[in-house]
């Protein structure tokens, strides 16, 4: 776990003190709302439908018990006893009072956390594979690179006023668990021809109004060239990206309009000028950072209890992934209890997760972009004890990767930008398929729901994507099918006209029945089946002829 050094600590405390003063000046009227708004956004404070919302960065999704307990404390002391984990691996508190926010930020600084750059047109929280350091298929831990990027991008004066927000993710395996190609820049750690360390770089991905899959800009970048290369990309973007229209201001539009080959030339030209200005200090810093990500002291193999109960076995099969050590597992704790709000955790649940991490799992926790919590290093012999305690707290839902493990953005239950609700749609889908008892029969299925075109719920890359819109004053839900957020990223295809709030769950049920009918055998997953048969059978299920007529009438 990276610990703040004196510089980091002083910087974060300085920002809290500055914001405390700014809040005081807003409250006494010295600062106008127009002056205060960009300031509060720079400190992660939004105004939502019912209250302020504080978005706190969880860099590369990594937490330890001390941080998790502090989040629980903040939830109890200044909020309503819960927090919401987001697809950006951040946590949001939905009910803070303006006057309390400086105190919350101080409480965060006590545990090396902050809310800086969680909003605004700057480089946002850097995300990484949530299995980092534990996955069997990774080349190295991607988090030191992510931390280097965090330090470089925090308060970088040249990138404080970009045309639009900017998101970077880092992975270190073939298999992409971090939706890499939906980021403005995707960094994948690779090895060169002579096994030398380096990066494959992708640029111009993004969801939102105009979804685009990132394109490869460099197949191999030597490790020491990362910062000059990324600065070159950002400088080309800063100079050439559009600022006249916020929907055309993301780098994906620039890359698309310029063409990746021409864009690459511009970046490479800038890079050649820039490279000599870098003297290698950042590589020294990187080596120091790497020193704070040493693997935990793994224990020697010890036997599992011989007999496991059915509930425990099912939970292990569904929620525990292979660790790079055979006698360890990666536990994903589902924050998708049937009928619960995806991504929400109560303060008691947060404290339990902190306890489990500390007692059994080398004190590490991760937030996944799928809005679950991961215990990355769990000796398998502790799985029964962990399961029992999760179960007692309502956290043992065995549904990771299944139809009820739904991503849902806050939508119109909280978000000021929303055009429709997402949370209740997720709750009802989960409840319906649970009631039908079909979850395991259906198998791997990713449903992702957004409450507006901003696509925080990643609906474009859901196997089934749902987008909530406002059609003439009524909630209306558009379905996309066939999306994929892994290394084979695909933007889903629109199925046809949308469905009302009351019709959306039955519509999803018809899609699933169609899948169960047309799949060749239970081994063929929904996404494989969709790739084989295409849209037609699902369209027919969604829009049967008589309904098509009445819809058209």
């Amino acid at each position, binding site marked *: 776990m990276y610990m703040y050094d004196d510089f980091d600590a002083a910087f974060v405390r300085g920002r809290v003190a500055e914001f405390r003063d700014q809040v005081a000046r*807003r*409250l006494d*009227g010295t600062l*106008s*709302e127009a002056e205060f708004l960009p300031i509060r956004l720079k400190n992660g404070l939004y*105004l*939502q*439908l*019912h*209250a*302020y919302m504080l978005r706190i960065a969880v860099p590369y999704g990594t937490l330890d018990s001390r941080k998790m307990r502090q989040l629980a404390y903040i939830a109890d002391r200044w909020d*309503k006893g819960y927090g919401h984990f987001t697809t950006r691996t951040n946590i949001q508190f*939905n*009910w*803070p*009072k*303006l*006057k309390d926010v400086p105190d919350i930020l101080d409480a965060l600084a006590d545990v090396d956390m902050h809310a800086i750059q969680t909003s605004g047109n700057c480089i946002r929280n850097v995300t990484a594979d949530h299995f980092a350091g534990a996955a069997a298929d990774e080349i190295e831990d991607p988090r030191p690179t992510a931390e280097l990027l965090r330090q470089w991008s925090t308060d970088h004066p040249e990138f404080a006023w970009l045309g639009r927000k900017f998101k970077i993710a880092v992975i270190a395996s073939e298999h992409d668990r971090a939706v890499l190609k939906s980021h403005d820049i995707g960094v994948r750690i690779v090895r060169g021809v002579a096994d030398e360390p380096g990066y494959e770089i992708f640029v111009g991905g993004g969801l939102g109004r105009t979804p685009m899959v990132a394109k490869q800009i460099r197949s191999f970048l030597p490790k020491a060239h990362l910062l000059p290369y990324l600065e070159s990309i950002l400088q080309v973007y800063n100079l050439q990206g559009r600022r006249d229209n916020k929907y055309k201001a993301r780098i994906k539009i620039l890359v698309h309009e310029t063409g990746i080959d021409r864009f690459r030339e511009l970046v490479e030209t800038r890079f050649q000028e820039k490279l000599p200005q870098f003297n290698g200090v950042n590589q020294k810093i990187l080596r120091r950072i790497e020193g704070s990500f040493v693997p935990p002291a793994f224990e020697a193999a010890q036997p599992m209890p011989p007999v496991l109960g059915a509930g425990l076995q099912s939970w292990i099969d569904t929620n525990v992934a292979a660790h790079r050590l055979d006698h360890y597992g990666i536990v994903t704790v589902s924050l998708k209890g049937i009928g619960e*709000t995806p991504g929400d955790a109560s303060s008691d649940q947060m404290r339990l997760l902190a306890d489990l991490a500390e007692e059994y799992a080398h004190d590490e926790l991760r937030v996944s972009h799928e809005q679950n919590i991961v215990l990355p290093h769990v000796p398998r012999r502790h799985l029964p004890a962990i399961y029992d305690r999760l179960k007692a707290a309502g956290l043992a839902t065995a549904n990771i990767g299944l139809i009820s493990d739904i991503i849902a953005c806050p939508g*119109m*239950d*909280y978000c000021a930008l*929303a055009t429709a*609700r997402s*949370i*209740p749609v997720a*709750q009802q889908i989960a409840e319906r398929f649970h009631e039908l008892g079909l979850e395991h029969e259906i198998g791997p299925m990713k449903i992702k729901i957004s409450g507006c075109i901003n696509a925080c719920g990643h609906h474009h890359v859901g196997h089934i994507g749902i987008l909530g819109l*406002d059609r003439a*004053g*009524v*909630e209306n839900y558009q379905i996309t099918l066939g999306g994929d957020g892994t290394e084979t990223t695909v933007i889903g295809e629109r199925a046809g006209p949308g469905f009302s709030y009351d019709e959306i769950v039955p519509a999803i049920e018809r899609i699933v029945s169609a899948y169960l009918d047309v799949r060749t055998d239970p081994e063929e997953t929904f996404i494989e089946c969709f790739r084989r048969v295409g849209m037609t059978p699902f369209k027919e299920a969604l829009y049967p002829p008589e309904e098509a007529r009445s819809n058209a009438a």
Partner: protein
Amino acid sequence: MAKKFNPKMATGNDLLEGDVVYFSDGRWTRVIGEAELALSPEAEADLLGRASQFPNQVVGVYLTDVKLDDAGRAVPAHFREDFRMLGPSNRPEHGRAGQGA
């Protein structure tokens, strides 16, 4: 022919608490039924002008369509205003509806 005029109210969020408030004849209230109504285009401009006189108390002030209940009081015309009035539907206990307001 002139388009039918929809009655409007002025609403915004309280600077300190962040919660939803409605403008009512020189003051702000948390009770939607007390919201002052603009019944003509002229009244609308006047209402927004008066509601905007509290920059250090209420932020993000805007006008929104309302319907009238039998007693002639404002009720939301759009579902977004329903949610603003009631609070999050997934946790009704945290909204006004759950607090008996």
